[in-house]
């Protein structure tokens, strides 16, 4: 057994419009290192955009930034997106449908649905002191 810790990349993203794209650039490099195919790499980037803009828009973080950790565990990529905001109750988040959204005044609210569809696993840990979204993708 090796005691070498798995490769990890840590990013701090300021809450500034479009800065989520900085996270996707890193994700592309990590995916390339893992030799993931283009489809999986694009799915990871899209899920990461959604997780990051959710943190930007809904956390009301006073810290002003979002932490993103990429951990390569063999053939599994684990991504954690953490904000130090007010937290949220996932049970209160309604699963959107196009039939409902097309006539609604509120057409947004697709982020969690996209993340869950695009990644292999997704877990949420949220308290009044912040939220961590943990997403995984297998090679």
């Amino acid at each position, binding site marked *: 057994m090796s005691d070498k810790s798995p490769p990890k990349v840590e990013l701090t993203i300021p809450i500034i*419009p*479009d800065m*989520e*794209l900085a996270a*996707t650039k890193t994700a592309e490099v990590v995916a390339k290192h893992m030799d993931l195919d*283009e*489809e999986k790499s*694009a*799915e990871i*980037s*899209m899920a990461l*955009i*959604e997780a990051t*803009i959710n943190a930007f828009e809904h956390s009301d973080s006073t810290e002003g930034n979002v932490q993103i950790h990429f951990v390569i565990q063999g053939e599994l990529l684990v991504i954690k997106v953490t904000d130090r905001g007010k937290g949220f109750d996932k049970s209160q988040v309604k699963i*959107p*449908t*196009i*039939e409902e*959204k*097309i*006539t609604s005044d509120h*057409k*947004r609210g*697709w*982020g969690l*649905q*996209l993340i869950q*569809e*695009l990644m292999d696993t997704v877990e949420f840990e949220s308290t009044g002191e912040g939220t961590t979204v943990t997403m995984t993708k297998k090679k």
Partner: protein
Amino acid sequence: MADFTLEVKDEGDIVVIETNGYLNNVGGEKISQACYEKMENGKTRFLLDLENSKVVNSIGVSIIIEIIEKLQDVDGRLGYYNLAPIVEKTFNIMGLTKYSTVFGSKSEALEGMS
């Protein structure tokens, strides 16, 4: 990333909008503004060429849902071509393809919208 830009062309009765850049809230608003201006002039059929918008987010795509809603009021149609696979997948997940059409090429799109 460079600012989102678009080019609007009339191809007969069909309005073709070629986009360039990240389709976020800003990009979505620019597309909707271009569509609504054309709708005021009686246009009801629109095609988005997304070849140069390979990165999108759900906020930008939500604005496209708004365009679809407004087109329903005038019996209009919206279609797309040159989509990156992840953009097409996103449109499928969000259900846009139930109310608008993804085409394989510009010629197929122009024929399909005629």
